[in-house]
């Protein structure tokens, strides 16, 4: 298994010496918080898993309002291991988004976004948005009652945006209502547009990480940290973590295959106690906090604007946090980070149990 001639053939044409040198030089600091470094890798792994299972599912899925629901039932009941791969795709998505949030808050609280890594934060943030849209669009593809109603709620929320709201809503729905048009649209997003965007953004994200190396938390920047070579030490550790993650998703997928509800019927009343997926609950719950109208203005619009502002501030946080960009401690932004985290957790939990 040495293939010396193949290697020589390649070496004659391409000079990979710099790459090899880079690989040998890449070091990863080890310290008390280095556990959080793994979250990014886990997301990467889960996305690869999602791509594989998604490609296979697309062999059988029929993106049409009449057939979508039935084709999924067929996948689950008739095909070899179909029930398993649908379940795996479902749980892989859940876990990927969960890990993404962990990654986000870890980066936020360890201030890994600070100069010079602002672009990493931006690209990662957009990736999170893409992933949430992945989740929303994938959910609708099931085309059962709950998915149908949940997507109606979610896209309806976008409609409350001032000015552009109705335009966004119509663009998402492919009409004024959620119909078969929406299904094909979301299918296109889910299998073509978003995956391409993800691949591009992820490549950028990973590339930037290579340029900057791993960020070390402010509190440790003066400590003499032991360094560990990325190849092969960290790679092996990453593999170990991925294997455990794989085992966990597979186990969950086997033990808790997700239910399939009744086929969506635009004319039927929506089932009771409709909730979006858990990762939208914090938004959903925030919207619920606001009364119907505040001082004569539409309460929903205000809520949506506030939420958008909150998200935008989080997005440009690296630019606002001047102190940590000078490598100084910035307790204020510690606090802001914690407030965001607590808000997210509380709203998600409240939304889940209400």
């Amino acid at each position, binding site marked *: 298994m040495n293939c010396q001639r193949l290697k020589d053939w390649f070496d004659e044409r391409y000079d990979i010496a710099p790459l090899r040198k880079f690989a040998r030089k890449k070091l990863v600091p080890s310290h008390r918080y280095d556990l959080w470094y793994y979250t990014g890798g886990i997301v990467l792994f889960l996305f690869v898993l999602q791509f594989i299972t998604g490609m*296979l599912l697309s062999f059988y899925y029929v993106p049409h309002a009449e057939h979508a629901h039935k084709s999924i039932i067929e996948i689950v009941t008739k*095909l*070899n*291991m179909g029930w398993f791969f649908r379940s795996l795709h479902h749980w892989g998505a859940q876990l990927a988004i969960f890990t993404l949030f962990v990654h986000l808050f870890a980066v936020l609280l360890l201030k890994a976004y600070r100069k010079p890594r602002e672009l990493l934060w931006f690209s990662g943030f957009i990736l999170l948005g893409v992933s949430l849209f992945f989740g929303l669009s994938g959910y609708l593809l099931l085309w059962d009652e709950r998915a149908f109603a949940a997507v109606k709620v979610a896209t309806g929320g976008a409609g409350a945006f001032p000015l552009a709201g109705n335009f966004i809503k119509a663009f998402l729905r492919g009409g004024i209502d959620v119909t078969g048009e929406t299904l094909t649209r979301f299918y296109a997003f889910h299998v073509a547009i978003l995956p391409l965007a993800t691949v591009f953004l992820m490549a950028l994200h990973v590339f930037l990480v290579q340029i900057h190396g791993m960020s070390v938390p402010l509190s440790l920047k003066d400590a003499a940290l032991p360094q560990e070579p990325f190849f092969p030490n960290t790679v092996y550790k990453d593999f170990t973590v991925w294997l455990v993650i794989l085992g966990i998703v597979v186990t969950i997928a086997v033990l808790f295959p997700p239910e399939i509800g009744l086929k969506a019927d635009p004319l039927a009343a929506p089932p009771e106690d409709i909730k979006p997926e858990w990762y939208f609950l914090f938004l959903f719950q925030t919207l619920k906090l606001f009364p119907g109208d505040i001082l004569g203005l539409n309460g929903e619009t205000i809520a949506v604007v506030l939420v958008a502002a909150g998200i935008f501030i989080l997005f440009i946080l690296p630019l606002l946090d001047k102190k940590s960009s000078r490598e100084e401690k910035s307790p204020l932004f510690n606090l802001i980070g914690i407030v965001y985290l607590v808000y997210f957790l509380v709203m998600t939990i409240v939304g889940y149990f209400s």
Partner: protein
Amino acid sequence: MKINYSLITRRTFLNTLLGGWLLAFLSGSFLALFKFAFPTLGKEPDFVILKNVDDYMNIPPNSIKPFAWGGKLGIFFKRADGALVALKGVCSHMECNIAYKPEERKFYCPCHKGWFDETGKNIKGPPPKPLEIFEYTLEEGKLIVARKGVKVELPKA
């Protein structure tokens, strides 16, 4: 620093172990993926249930009536002597559909000119095996055609 010879051996051993285990692990995982990637559709059923029984039982002697055996051709055949046979209408050579020639009382496969006699035996041409004969039973006004030796478990209607 001098390296002991045993060091290399240990590394080689570990590399082989890791590579082998990884290979087994990956091939196991990909086997599952492949299983899902190739649908069951081509798989033959163990039995089929036919509704309009009379249509099949009352065919004239020396004639056939086709039925769907999964995605393949099944043939109900009444011999000239009145005996009813259910068989798979697929040639044992390269799986072409066969036709019945009443004048010659033989089954004919047009693909490579194979011939089978009334009992399904291969008598001329390339087919290496006789045709597959099914068993059939009448139950509650339904005709159940099953592969030989298969226990039929009716799904609860």
